[in-house]
């Protein structure tokens, strides 16, 4: 990546290495895998998008959401509802409608929820996901535990997908395009503003960035792409039920982001692939995903709060401790992950 960046900055700016990477993966995976491993790869691809979308909010903008399942589920349910009521609509249009609905919902929610500080915001995201989960049981049109079936029949443009291989090409293409769009956003001034808000909301505000607008926008974008990921997973599995809105989903996507680490653009992608594969391979050991996700998240948070990319620093620190030299001074301020939590910047400003 660095090599390409040195020789052709424009190509990097346009995200050509990213697109090329997706193209290579899209071609290579079916060569080596087929049947159920290919399906796992398809799921992993959708989760790559979900993790990237979450990273827009969490990694880029510093807003921690415990309710990403809400938007994932909105995408899946939008797909299912459209398939039930307007079965002739092309699948790609359904994706766009679902993304738009989730983006609007998220922006509206953020307008309210961002009036509070970090702690209340975290609660409210959890509450939002849980309320939507409850609605699937309360609203008769959403069919409760039964959910929706028959999503295989969705026509992508004119024809429905007929094989696992077609599903793979379709999923990876949509994910690739979405990730490429996110890359363009990442490199744009809007993306830069998001990172400025994450690093220091007060300074960003002083520089003339409309912090709230950036946060609401990031929330909406994140939700829209999460909805696309949810719809892709729903299409792959053919069914949509309340489990797409379960809080373990919100936890899983945070795990994916944290495993990969969010200081690099592609970190969450890596994390999502690792998560889905580990989960699939260990599904015989852990029947209940809550224990697995919870313990994994605990280990990451306690041992490696900054993801796998922080491993070299960690090792260096341990080695220094062993060799007996004094550790570098680290107060709460230096150890702290950049965040937009209200209380801390507020007090340091006063």
């Amino acid at each position, binding site marked *: 990546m660095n090599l390409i960046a040195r020789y052709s900055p424009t190509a990097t700016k346009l995200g050509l290495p990213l697109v090329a990477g997706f193209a290579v993966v899209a071609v290579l995976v079916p060569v080596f895998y087929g049947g159920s491993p290919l399906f796992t790869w398809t799921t992993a691809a959708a989760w790559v998008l979900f993790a990237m979308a979450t990273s827009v909010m969490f990694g880029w903008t*510093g807003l921690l959401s415990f309710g990403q399942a809400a938007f994932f589920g909105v995408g899946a349910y939008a797909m299912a509802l459209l398939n039930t009521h307007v079965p002739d609509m092309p699948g790609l249009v359904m994706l766009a409608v679902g993304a738009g609905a989730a983006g609007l919902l998220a922006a509206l929610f953020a307008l309210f929820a*961002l009036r*509070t*500080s970090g*702690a209340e915001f975290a609660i409210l995201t959890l509450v939002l996901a849980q309320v939507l989960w409850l609605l699937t049981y309360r609203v008769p049109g959403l069919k409760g535990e039964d959910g929706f079936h028959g999503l295989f029949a969705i026509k992508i443009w004119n024809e429905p997908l007929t094989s696992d291989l077609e599903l793979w090409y379709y999923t990876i293409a949509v994910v690739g395009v979405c990730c490429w769009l996110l890359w363009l956003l990442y490199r744009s001034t809007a993306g830069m503003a998001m990172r400025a808000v994450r690093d220091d909301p007060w300074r960003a505000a002083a520089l003339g960035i409309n912090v*709230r607008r950036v946060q609401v926008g990031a929330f909406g974008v994140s939700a829209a792409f999460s909805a696309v990921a949810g719809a892709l997973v729903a299409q792959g599995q053919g069914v949509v039920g309340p489990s797409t809105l379960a809080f373990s989903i919100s936890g899983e996507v945070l795990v994916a982001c944290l495993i990969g680490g969010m200081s690099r653009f592609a970190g969450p992608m890596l994390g999502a692939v690792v998560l889905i594969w580990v989960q699939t391979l260990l599904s015989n050991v852990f029947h209940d995903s809550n224990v697995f996700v919870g*313990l994994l998240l605990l280990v990451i*948070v306690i041992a490696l709060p900054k993801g796998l990319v922080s491993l070299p620093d960690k090792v260096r620190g341990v080695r220094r401790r062993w060799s007996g030299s004094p550790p570098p001074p680290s107060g709460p301020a230096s150890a702290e992950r950049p965040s937009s939590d209200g209380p801390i910047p507020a007090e340091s400003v006063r």
Partner: protein
Amino acid sequence: MNDLIAVLVAGVAQGVPVFVVASGLTLIYGVLHVLNFAHGSFFLIGALIVTTTLQGPSLGAFLGSILLAGVGVMAIGVLSEVLVFRPLYKAGSTVSFLGAFALFLALLGLATLVWGTNPRTVAYPSALDGSFSIGGARVGQYDLALVAVGVVIAAGLWLLLTKTSLGTRVRAVSHDRTMALALGIRAGQVSTIVFGIGAFLAGVAGALIAPVSSIDEGLALSSDYMLPAFIAIIVGGLGSVPGALIAAIALGILESLSFRIAPSLSGFSYYLVVAAFLMFRPQGLLGSAARSTAMAR
């Protein structure tokens, strides 16, 4: 008039478990600046302990298992504070929120491993299984007992926080941790104790609702108790125990009223209230304005 009394008692009875959970949450937030999502699991485990330990229908046995639930959950709480939150304390609030969420998922999963996923029920203690009339209104005995328990716990917390040396230390750490440390208060010890108290309260709350609710996984984030508790601490102001009390009871009464007047709205009144508060008073009823410093409105 008759209706009003019944609605009020039902509302307060609905609000009491919410207050008991919320007071623990808000105390912990005040002292540790951790939003303890794991409270949902504590609450569930409290209820589950009652399903296992309750022997017979006598009131004494019920009180005994409530106490067991409280102490058991307190042990889990102290362990998790020492093992999970203490190492994270320096890492900042985002990381400890993540830790709390991870703990929530892990404990919830472990609880379902131990107790299974089938819903369980607990019978009312025989002495409280019935209703009587106050001025013509039918009032459930258990509801009235809940109201009494709420009064006892609120009074106990008030005494603990304002009249004891521990309470003074808790308030000092909550107010300004650095200054408290400088004055020789062992903030770490206070944090552990507060976490223990909060977990104890969550366990007791879970035990209290065991007879009135079906006990399964869903209880950990149920729309009847846990979500209202989260909303109560926002509406009451994060870190304020009196705020949590007022908010929990008022929300309980409001929910009970809306169930009587506009049943279609019931279950959603909480969310409407929290939306209104976020619009007009984001710091909550008794929260300090300095806490809530939303950026560049």
